[in-house]
């Protein structure tokens, strides 16, 4: 039985008595890639912040099986006085880890994939929004994490570049556990194995859909509607069988 990387049980969170997460329960197995698809203001970012230990839940429990999961925030959060290279390698300094030859190879390969090879010595103010997001993505992935939370990580990146980056990501880190928050069903299909679809602006009741199911295609091409899927609040765990099929 594969252990869960993340398990969330009866999680609730409100801001000034306005609930954004209400009795949410789900789990992501190690190596699983789950997308959260919900309307704006539904507490998706709050969920990531709770999982990262940046906010406390009102009630419920959260368990993440790594001490400091890598978080890709909605904004790139680059240090303005550091170059692209310095920003990307900063986590190694923060965690007292040596930058090995392997790391540098991976660094250069990511720069090529993202089209940033010429921008190593540039500062963030010299980059476009999409380039900054790519730098943030490389900074997160270069640490070789086992779990990454991505909060709309591709919103300023073009369609083609996004496709190339996701392909490289899946090739380089086949066992990476991913929690993806996005508004783009194409990203869900490219990156995730299952989608938690929240029909209302509160993270609580959801429908869990396998992204390779016909239901997901129906969802993609019917204006984000899942007429025959009944949202429920029961725990949604990606079936181990599906996951194994995916990875094989």
């Amino acid at each position, binding site marked *: 039985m594969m252990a869960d990387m993340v398990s969330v049980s009866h999680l609730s969170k409100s801001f000034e008595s306005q609930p954004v997460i209400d009795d949410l329960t789900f789990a992501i197995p190690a190596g699983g890639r789950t997308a959260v698809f919900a309307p704006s203001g539904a507490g998706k970012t709050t969920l990531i912040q709770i999982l*990262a230990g940046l906010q406390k839940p009102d009630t419920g429990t959260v368990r993440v099986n790594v001490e400091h999961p890598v978080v890709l925030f909605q904004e790139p959060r680059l240090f303005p006085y550091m170059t692209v290279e310095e920003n990307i390698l900063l986590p190694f300094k923060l965690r007292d880890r040596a930058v090995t030859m392997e790391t540098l190879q991976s660094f250069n390969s990511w720069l090529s994939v993202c089209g940033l090879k010429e921008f190593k010595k540039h500062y*963030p103010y010299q980059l476009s929004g999409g380039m900054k997001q790519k730098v943030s993505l490389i900074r997160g992935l270069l640490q070789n994490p086992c779990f990454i939370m991505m909060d709309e990580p591709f919103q300023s990146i073009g369609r083609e570049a996004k496709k190339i980056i996701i392909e490289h990501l899946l090739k380089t880190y086949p066992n990476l556990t991913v929690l993806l928050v996005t508004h783009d069903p194409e990203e869900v299909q490219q990156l995730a194995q299952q989608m938690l679809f929240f029909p209302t602006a509160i993270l609580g009741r959801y429908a869990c859909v396998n992204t390779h199911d016909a239901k997901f295609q129906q969802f993609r091409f019917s204006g984000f509607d899942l007429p025959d899927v009944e949202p429920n609040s029961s725990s949604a765990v990606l079936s181990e069988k599906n996951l194994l099929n995916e990875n094989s």
Partner: protein
Amino acid sequence: MTNTKTFITSLRNEGIAFLLFIGVWGLVSAFYPVYIIPSPLAVAYAFPGFLPEGFTHHLAVTAWRVFLGFGVSFILGSFIGMAAFSKKWEAPVNALMSAANILPGMILGVIFLLVFGIGSLTPIMLVICMTLPSVTINTVNNLSRRDPSLEQYLVSMGARRAHFLRYIYLPALVPTLLSNLSLGLGLAIKVVLMGEFIGSQDGLGYLLNVARIYFNMKEVFFYLALLLVVTLVYQGCLTLLSRTLLKKFFYAN
């Protein structure tokens, strides 16, 4: 940009300011007799005949008082500002320093003269008391404006306290320290001169007072021009520093 070009453009504004000052001075002097407002040329022709004996000693004494007084105020103010920020005492410290900031320098100078007597301590203490509030308030306010999203990133990475200091607080302080050095030194020079004017037997402030009493206006205007040149060169050096070594700390995200 080459280093030479950076150097020239950094000092351009200071040069323009100096020429503007000389121009206005020359223009105004045309309407007054030489014993009230001598022209820049009249001062230049009379130089250095009007300088008193031991002028360089007086100059050195003033410079020493400015740098010691302002140095203490700069270090103490930056330290109090950082401590207030880290202990979340921004509001009470700001209130205290704002109150201290309105104390009139002249009255404080007279009180210090009575307490410390004639000598170096009066102008030095005056500089510390007059510049400390501005340095502290500036430090606290600028630290409060740091980017909280970067702090959150470091928290998510499990960063230690030293990392916050190194990657967030110290870089956020660089523009503040430069602006404190820029604004504070001008104020410090003024205050030292006032202190020497009131309670000292040496220094440029003392010389200005003597020259004023004897109506030696060429000497008075020479001292004013000298102060202007020193301040402009100092400002030029700070500009150069902010455009070369410390340039990256001024970049926006």
